[in-house]
């Protein structure tokens, strides 16, 4: 069984031993604690719950402070961490010490926060000043103090700019206007021309009209005093000061870096403590005892009892099977080779615990499709070798490990299909295909792809039938899948032998009679039955969708050939040869990347839409055991 059976454990023990028991549960690492809110029991609702929630919240707050400090400091940490560095080891007594001295963490947090706030303030000032500087720079030649620009008793003075292209026309119309005025072009930067203008109050309307006509934009420096050049000098000095200030702040941050290893260890210690409190908050509490409900994999039942026995003799432990219609967490247990493919299913949805885990059946198809779509043996060798090295050398966990594993398996499959179809580095290496060349015999390849599709779809229907039978719905399996098998196989046989017609008709009649069985009234039943035959187009579409196996394989091969031919055009001189090699490397790297991405996406799609569409029932709840979860340290007793 790929979906592990779960037992519901009820543990009752003494309050006095609560702490040490929780510790042993965490070390055991297999309990999926049932949240107390999810238990639907009237009696339980009246019994008080443990009040550990407050503690958990307190730890959460501390954790976010530590995380803030770590994130902040990481920006200034220039030392590179090796991926292979062993985790720091923290003993039980050290763990306690960390918890006693939490003030230091808060101190560091406050320091980090203060520095960060000052840096942000610094940054704001800097942007504001640089903006003013940009606005001032065209006016550097204006030798009038800015506060003196404006209205006097009889005159008005203005500064502003117009588009450069109308300079001569603008100056001409000003000169022609019958007003007394003075204007001076201060600067001109191809885009805009900057002017200073003084005129008498009574000619304001005439002048403003001209200004408006040429797209005048008025400039105002309300909060500045002194000449523009004085201001510019002043701002530049201020900016240098700010820069210095920033460097000082960064130095202060760097001086805090020595706290990093302390913070990292504390982060893990706090996570462990917080997880414990979270679990305790799901305890049902009486004066002397507590009760906890949790799912535990069937295979770990004995281990659980032993781990409790090590702590205490006074406990009560009972196991129950999941009740009718009760959902239990889904824990997939597959052989090592299948595990990478679990990722594909997990990204879709975990299976419902009462159905089947599709991974084992899906794995060979997924890997095969991946190989067929990349279908170049040399690409396969490169992909498999790189991912194999990554798997062996790096400490990969969880999703990353599965993804690299998946690519490694895909690479191996690519080698096989590349050899079968004769794809070796886009044809640069001429090796005869072990089977046939799809580009030369496209029809054969197309038929092969569709046959693979029919096989996978039939298997999908078979799984649905199996689930129905397992859950006691034998009739559903016969009517929904059995008759479809008869009908479809009949249709397929018709390609080779007209006698298949009779099988198809038998299947069709059966489907018409049974598919409307949930409907009321003879007419409705028959109508739904006839309508259901229309689903055959859906099946046809699903099968045709597998033709992408051919098309994507074709794309890899032809692009590879294009890269080769274009590179070989450069061959000849010494420099040409060098360019040829560079072009080959870049071209093929690109081709591998884009095709591996395509193979991953399209192979997934074939599973999700075509294969899963036939049987899959998702929405499984993931199995999240209560265990020691550390990022930086390793715990030791």
């Amino acid at each position, binding site marked *: 069984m790929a979906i592990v059976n779960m037992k519901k454990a009820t543990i009752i023990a003494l309050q006095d031993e609560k702490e040490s028991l929780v510790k042993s549960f965490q070390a055991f690492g297999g309990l999926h604690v049932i949240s107390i809110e999810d238990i639907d029991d009237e009696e339980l609702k009246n019994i008080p719950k443990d009040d550990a929630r407050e503690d958990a919240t307190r730890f959460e707050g501390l954790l976010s402070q530590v995380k803030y400090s770590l994130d902040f400091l990481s920006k200034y940490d220039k030392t590179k961490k090796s991926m292979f560095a062993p985790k720091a080891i923290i003993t039980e007594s050290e763990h306690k010490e960390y918890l006693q001295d939490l003030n230091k963490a808060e101190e560091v947090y406050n320091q980090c926060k203060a520095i960060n706030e000052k840096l942000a303030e610094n940054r704001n000032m800097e942007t504001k000043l640089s903006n003013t500087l940009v606005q001032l720079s065209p006016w550097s030649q204006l030798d009038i103090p800015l506060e003196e620009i404006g209205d006097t008793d009889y005159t008005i003075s203005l500064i502003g700019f117009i588009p450069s292209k109308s300079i001569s026309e603008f100056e001409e119309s000003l000169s022609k206007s019958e007003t007394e005025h003075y204007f001076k072009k201060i600067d001109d930067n191809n885009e805009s021309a900057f002017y200073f203008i003084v005129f008498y109050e009574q000619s304001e309307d005439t002048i403003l009209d001209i200004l408006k006509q040429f797209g005048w934009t008025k400039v105002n420096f309300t909060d500045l005093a002194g000449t523009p050049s004085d201001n510019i000098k002043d701002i530049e000095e201020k900016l240098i000061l700010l820069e210095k200030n920033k460097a000082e702040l960064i130095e202060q941050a760097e001086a805090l870096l020595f706290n990093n290893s302390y913070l990292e260890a504390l982060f893990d210690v706090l996570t462990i403590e917080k997880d414990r409190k979270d679990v305790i908050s799901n305890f049902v509490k009486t004066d002397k005892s507590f009760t906890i409900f949790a799912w535990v994999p069937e295979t770990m039942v004995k281990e659980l009892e032993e781990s409790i026995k090590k702590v205490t003799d006074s406990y009560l432990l009972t196991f129950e099977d999941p009740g009718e219609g009760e959902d239990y967490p889904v824990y997939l247990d597959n052989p090592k080779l299948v595990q990478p493919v679990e990722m594909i299913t997990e990204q879709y949805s975990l299976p419902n615990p009462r159905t089947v885990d599709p991974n084992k059946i899906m794995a060979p198809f997924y890997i095969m499709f991946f190989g067929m779509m990349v279908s170049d043996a040399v690409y396969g060798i490169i992909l498999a070798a790189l991912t194999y090295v990554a798997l062996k050398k790096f400490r990969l966990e969880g999703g990353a490990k599965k993804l690299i594993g998946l690519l490694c398996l895909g690479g191996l499959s690519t080698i096989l299909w590349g050899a079968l179809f004769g794809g070796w580095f886009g044809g640069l290496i001429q090796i005869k295909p072990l089977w046939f060349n799809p580009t030369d015999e496209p029809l054969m390849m197309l038929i092969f792809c569709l046959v693979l599709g029919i096989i996978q779809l039939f298997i999908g229907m078979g799984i649905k039938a199996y689930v129905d039978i397992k859950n006691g719905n034998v009739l559903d399996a016969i009517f929904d899948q059995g008759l479809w098998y008869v009908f479809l196989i009949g249709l397929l046989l018709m390609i080779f032998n007209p006698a298949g017609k009779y099988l198809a008709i038998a299947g069709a009649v059966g489907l018409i009679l049974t598919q409307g069985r949930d409907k009321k009234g003879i007419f409705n039943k028959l109508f739904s039955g006839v309508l259901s035959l229309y689903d055959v187009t859906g099946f046809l579409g699903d099968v045709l969708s597998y033709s992408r196996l051919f098309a994507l394989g074709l794309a890899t091969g032809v692009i590879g050939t294009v890269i080769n031919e274009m590179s070989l055009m450069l061959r000849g001189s010494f420099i040409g040869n060098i360019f040829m090699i560079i072009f080959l490397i870049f071209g093929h790297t690109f081709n591998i990347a884009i095709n591996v991405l395509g193979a991953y*996406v399209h192979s997934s799609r074939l599973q999700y839409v075509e294969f899963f569409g036939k049987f899959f029932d998702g929405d499984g709840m993931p199995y999240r055991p209560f265990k020691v979860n550390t990022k930086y340290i390793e715990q030791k007793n």
Partner: protein
Amino acid sequence: MNIMEMMGSNAGLYLAFLGSAIAAGLAGAGSAMGVGIVGMAAGGVITEDPSKFGRTLVLQALPGTQGIYGLLIGFLIWSKVGVFGTFVNVTFEQGLMLLAAGIPVGIVGFFSAIYQGKAAATGCSIVAKRPEETAKAMVYAAMVETYAVLSLLASFLMLNSINL
């Protein structure tokens, strides 16, 4: 003087070039637009969280394949008529067939790349809000690509049946 006389004995070759231009040009233009659309959405995501660069880049790459499919068919047409060596004699009828073979991947590639780009751009907001669901965003975009793949197949099968 009719058109055929105007084009002379190279009529078939002209049509073949037109076919390859439609295949590579239209599909490429579509991909450029599609990739651009995703790029704009991805840029927005990155301003909030630069660590999502990898995921959004994968989404951005998806509508790029149509251009490759188009180039692929274009390349097959060129190698058929001898662009890389000596030109072979292409009759007017053969030229029309080569032109027709370039059309599916060109037109479907053009539209599917744009719409795939839009689907992937929406996928970027999935990456922004629920990064763990990136795979689903990719599948939505890949649904659109199906038709580009089918048109590639159509173009290829047509092309494959033409013997010069």
